[in-house]
């Protein structure tokens, strides 16, 4: 009974703490704007299939390249598809792929980093050399190579992005682990005879979680950038999937007289990336982590 009470209290504290962080984030205008944009996009992504006025893949020669009007709010593209429909559905693709990609990146990058920081020695040296090597291959070349050899489907893209954006998290997690590892509570946990696994779970993860989460939030926006760049280059999701990068690249050639079909996805993608960035910055500040001096690796 009593232990039940304690866990309940703990959970309430966690919720309160999360709420506290949200409140700190929203207390500055930049954080509030970021949170609002991200929330807007997430809600839109959830409800877009139900509110989309047209079929996103319905091709019609009669409605090619129409200017914005009451029927087609954002006009139509070169195949006569409704740009508004495709723009609001595009956020769904981008958010799904990058959300699961970031989750994979956080998991493997975080765990490997903590492990390396904890064991140190030869294993650590070797892993960090390999991570450095991966970091020095430009992301775009590696992603293009994977995608061109394995094919362009979301089943390939999500793990590929997750793998590639996790390597930077390894470093952050490792550095954060190094900061904690010399502390007394780790030493005493070791003295109590706890196993490495239990130390990682009970002592290290709660202490490095904030740093890793902030890094993950940042990676999320870079991954969105990487993913849409891939789509733009024709190596991301394949048509007719509604995707912002793909829409921009298709509409680019005709933008001298049909600029609306390129503006709508540009606004969608830019606002989401800016929103995620502002949110991540505010999140870092609310947790007291300064990442303005770090390079985007």
């Amino acid at each position: 009974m009593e232990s039940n009470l304690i866990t309940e209290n703990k959970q309430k504290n966690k919720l309160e703490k999360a709420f506290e962080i949200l409140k700190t984030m929203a207390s500055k205008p930049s954080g509030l704007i970021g949170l609002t944009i991200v929330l807007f996009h997430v809600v839109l992504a959830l409800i877009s299939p139900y509110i989309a006025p047209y079929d996103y893949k319905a091709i019609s020669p009669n409605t090619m390249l129409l200017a914005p009007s009451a029927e087609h709010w954002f006009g139509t593209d070169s195949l006569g598809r409704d740009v508004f429909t495709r723009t609001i559905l595009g956020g769904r693709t981008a958010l799904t792929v990058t959300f699961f990609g970031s989750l994979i990146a956080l998991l493997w990058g975080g765990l490997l980093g903590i492990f390396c920081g904890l064991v140190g020695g030869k294993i650590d040296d070797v892993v960090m050399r390999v991570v450095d090597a991966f970091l020095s291959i430009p992301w775009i070349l590696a992603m293009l190579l994977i995608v061109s050899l394995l094919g362009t489907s979301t089943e390939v893209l999500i793990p590929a992005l997750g793998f590639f954006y996790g390597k930077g998290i390894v470093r952050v997690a490792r550095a954060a682990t190094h900061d904690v590892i010399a502390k007394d509570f780790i030493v005493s946990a070791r003295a109590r005879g706890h196993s490495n696994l239990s130390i990682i779970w009970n002592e290290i993860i709660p202490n490095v979680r904030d740093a890793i989460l902030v890094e993950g939030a940042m990676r999320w926006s870079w991954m969105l950038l990487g993913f849409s760049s891939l789509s733009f280059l024709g190596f991301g999701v394949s048509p007719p999937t509604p995707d912002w990068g793909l829409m921009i690249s298709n509409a680019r050639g005709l933008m001298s007289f049909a600029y609306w079909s390129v503006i709508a996805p540009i606004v969608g993608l830019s606002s989401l990336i800016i929103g995620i960035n502002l949110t991540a910055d505010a999140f870092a500040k609310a947790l007291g982590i300064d990442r303005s001096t770090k390079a985007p690796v």
Partner: protein
Amino acid sequence: MLLLILKRIGLGLITLFIVSLITFVGVEVLPGDACTTYLEREAYGAALDACIKRLGLDVPAYERYLDWASNVIRGDFGYSLSGEMPINEVLGPRVKNSLVLASVSILIGIPLAIVLGIITALWRDKLPDIMISTITIFSMTIPEFISATLLILIVAIWLGWLPGIVIIPSDATFYELLSNIILPVVAISMIMTAHMARMVRSSVIQVMASDYVQMAILKGVPYWKMVFRHVLPNALLPAINVVALTIAWLLGGVVVTEVVFNYPGLGRLVIESISNRDLPVVQALAIILASIYVGINLIADLMTLMLNPRLKSLQIRK
């Protein structure tokens, strides 16, 4: 000191070695070899045999790696599949073009970033800072292909000031290049400047809050003398490393920018070789781009070492 430099160079070489292993093993492990990927549906019979012979795919993988690696060290990357010419000949003009684009962008970007970073730091949270910081956040977060597309739409199409895409052959002269690269340079340096200005800003702010600057203020050192004598040297030094990492990171963005503007540099070669499934060229590009990355970081490390008197004496004492 010398030992430290040698160690850094050694680490860089090890990194490059692992990169070469990764690209080689990656191509080896992923389904399809260079010949079947390149020939696609025609990968049978005589054509396949000839291709395998030419690339030497009939010898074991480790032998091929050693062969390839020793050639690369001598500066020979082998043959391109699609152009059927030495990769070095394909690369030469492309490297030059990208170098022109990158160096012009860096020459504009770095001084601009330093000035903007200092202004935003000294007028922190005042109007100049808020304006410049807002602009930098926008230009560093918006993807390269979007800012490049918008530049083309606004400057080339709506205003009609400059050509929207670059239509020059890859062996154009330096002068021909310069007149064509204004928009690509703007697109690249915009993002680069934004990233670096933010780092300079936070670095200057940190130094301004330090004890020795407070001391200088209390001592009555004139404001601008304090900024130039005490703050800037200490603030810009740590920024060097971060700037190097940023430049290296932007290599990926340069690829996208080159594609948008149809610029005949290394970046477009990346896309072309991958579209053509020309794996030998892809391998060569991976090594070259990784060397640039490692090289830039090495230079930054060495510069920080040379310029920092404290680090130097520390190393000697050790």
